[in-house]
């Protein structure tokens, strides 16, 4: 069946015209705008709930700051100074107004601006989270795919069982077990801090590994890496378990889709069938679950950092909750929420590019 003459002349006559890629069209832009607008109400609701919940924790910051010997008058004076004597809705509005002007409050405990301290601690948390996220993806996605390839075999059952185990094991249990095993019994790895005490690094990026590399200090880099290992594994466990399960089910579902049968019917090579028809279609749920892990990482960091004496935002928030340091808790949680929502927005955009049908829904 050669095309008829008219067909050939037509296709030769028409100049090749590639359609504009999706990310340059209005579709994607309006999709992103819509999602950004959806973030705002989420943040409003979250900030109200958070503001209310912190104040439900029994105890009075002024009394805590002044100690057991303070008089009622002194406490009352401090409450007025901190604005805690105002009705709660007014406190909330003041808080919003301050944030709008870029003021995230001042810590009751250290009396330093929350924003400054947050950003000096944040790199530590980010470093830990990034390494943990990479670990959970590097372990989770291939194991999930392997499990899917061997669906309903012993391999699949063992991987699924371990993923459920990883996912349901509490972070503090994993952390303590790892410390006990590799730190205390085997003495292979350090159990606290970000780097050995004898290293002094220039504070350029505040990522211990990056700063060590920048100062060309290889033994410091090694020390930073070994310090990262246990906490990042601890933090990665829960996410890895979930990523394995989602990857497995997504790949299996994708493999059963009718269009994969079409592709097999075309006689494509095994590798092309797998990459373009099975794995590509399986990606969106995997991307989404990986993005959701940012939330798990940030909340898990609070526990992990506390266990491993890691000087990040997580351990700071835990301390601040205990000391009723409202500005610190409020602002860090709000910033975490913004990060979380933005990462999920990025995941949605990636999915829209991967599967353009999603951008329209």
């Amino acid at each position: 069946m050669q095309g008829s003459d008219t067909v050939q002349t037509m296709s030769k006559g028409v100049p090749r015209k590639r359609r504009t890629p999706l990310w340059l069209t209005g579709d994607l832009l309006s999709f992103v705008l819509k999602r950004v607008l959806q973030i705002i109400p989420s943040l409003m609701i979250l900030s109200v709930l958070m503001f209310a919940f912190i104040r439900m924790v029994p105890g009075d910051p002024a009394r805590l700051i002044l100690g057991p010997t303070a008089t009622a008058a002194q406490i009352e004076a401090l409450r007025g100074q901190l604005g805690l004597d105002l009705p709660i809705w007014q406190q909330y509005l003041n808080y919003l107004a301050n944030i709008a002007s870029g003021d995230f409050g001042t810590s009751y405990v250290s009396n330093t601006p929350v924003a400054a301290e947050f950003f000096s601690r944040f790199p530590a948390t980010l470093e830990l989270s990034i390494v943990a996220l990479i670990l959970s993806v590097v372990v989770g996605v291939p194991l999930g795919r392997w499990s899917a390839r061997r669906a309903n075999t012993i391999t699949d059952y063992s991987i699924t069982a371990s993923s459920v185990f990883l996912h349901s094991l509490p972070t503090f249990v994993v952390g303590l077990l790892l410390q006990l095993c590799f730190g205390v019994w085997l003495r292979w790895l350090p159990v606290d801090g970000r780097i050995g005490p004898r290293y002094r690094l220039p504070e350029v990026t505040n990522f211990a590994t990056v700063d060590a590399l920048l100062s060309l200090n290889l033994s410091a880099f090694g020390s930073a890496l070994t310090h990262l290992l246990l906490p990042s594994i601890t933090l990665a466990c829960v996410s890895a378990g979930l990523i394995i399960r989602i990857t497995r089910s997504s790949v299996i579902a994708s493999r059963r889709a009718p269009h994969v049968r079409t592709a097999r019917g075309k006689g494509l090579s095994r590798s092309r069938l797998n990459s373009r028809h099975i794995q590509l279609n399986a990606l969106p749920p995997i991307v989404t679950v990986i993005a959701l892990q940012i939330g798990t990482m940030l909340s898990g960091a609070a526990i992990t950092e506390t266990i491993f004496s890691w000087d990040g935002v997580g351990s700071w928030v835990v301390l601040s909750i205990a000391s009723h340091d409202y500005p610190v808790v409020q602002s860090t949680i709000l910033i975490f929420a913004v990060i979380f929502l933005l990462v999920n927005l990025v995941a949605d955009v990636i999915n829209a590019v991967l599967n353009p049908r999603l951008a329209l829904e």
Partner: protein
Amino acid sequence: MSIDTATAQRGTRRNAAVEIEDLRVQFRAGKETVYAVNGVTLSVAQGETLGIVGESGCGKSTAGFAMMRLLPEKITLISGRIIVAGNEIQGLPEAKLAGMRGRDIAMIYQDPMTSLNPVLRIGEQIVETLLAHKKMTRAAARSRASELLELVGIPDPEMRLDSYPHEISGGMRQRVMIAMAVALEPKVLIADEPTTALDVTTQAQILQVLKTLSGKTGTALVMITHDLGVVAGTTSRVAVMYAGHVIEHAMTETLFAEPRHPYTVGLMRAVPRIGSEDEELVPISGSPPDQREMPVFCPFAPRCRWRVASCWNEVPPLVAHGEHEVACFNPVLSKEAEVGVPLRDGFGVPPPSRDTKAFRSAIAFEPSGLQNTIVGG
């Protein structure tokens, strides 16, 4: 003529592009077995068009997928021989099979909404088919893809190459699938309800494309459909399937002129015919049998107006009467085919009371008031 000679005759059909011999397909799910195809023997010569007709679940699509070896292997039990372009495909290694699929045998799938990859552009899906089997540049494959889209009547094919499946209509997707299937001018093309999703004008256009293809390149076309109109217009031979059996097999003209099996007669008399609008339609009462039981008697017996006692004793074999093959112990007379009901007495024998599940389900399908509808009975 005995069954054996009939089979032999069909088996030795010359220039057969695809031959199926005693194909049996069973699906296993837990303890249950579904007997989907129960001993089908067919062959299609180069350039010939065979229609396979039957209602949903009669095993026609399953037979099509079996020819492509696209049935889910873990739960499927296949026996019999399937020879495509000279190769027995059952024992073929997967790599060899991949080389044949698309090039020697291709299929147009029933559901255009889910049978295209949603994340790849249409052009890419046609191009990759071409590149999988032919040494050609990507640019050449692309312009060939555009030609193919033009061939199946898609306007502005250059632009459409860059569309995603969700951006075009169902009818358009069906045509893309056809373009993909005919891309390499396969020796055998299985069209599973190729025009069901299309409106009537498009339907005619697509059928014309398939017919032309078959005439030009000698592609053997297997047209799987429930639509007798499609069969009448495009095929040269027809096999009527019921519950996994071929129950009648004849040249298309013969089948329409003189249907012999009660089921075929029922199919024809259940739809209005142009020029005979005054005729009363005769529905087929009851529903198809439960295929989870091994068939032990005629699968159509529970719904049949012509059944006799032997229908309950064994599955009637497909017997050749010249070129015309019928699997029936009491074939319909041509006068009866005209009116769609028996004109002789004494049919409608109730099933013997054997206590098997198959018989119980057969009794359940017993159409009520069957005797009353028999004209002149």
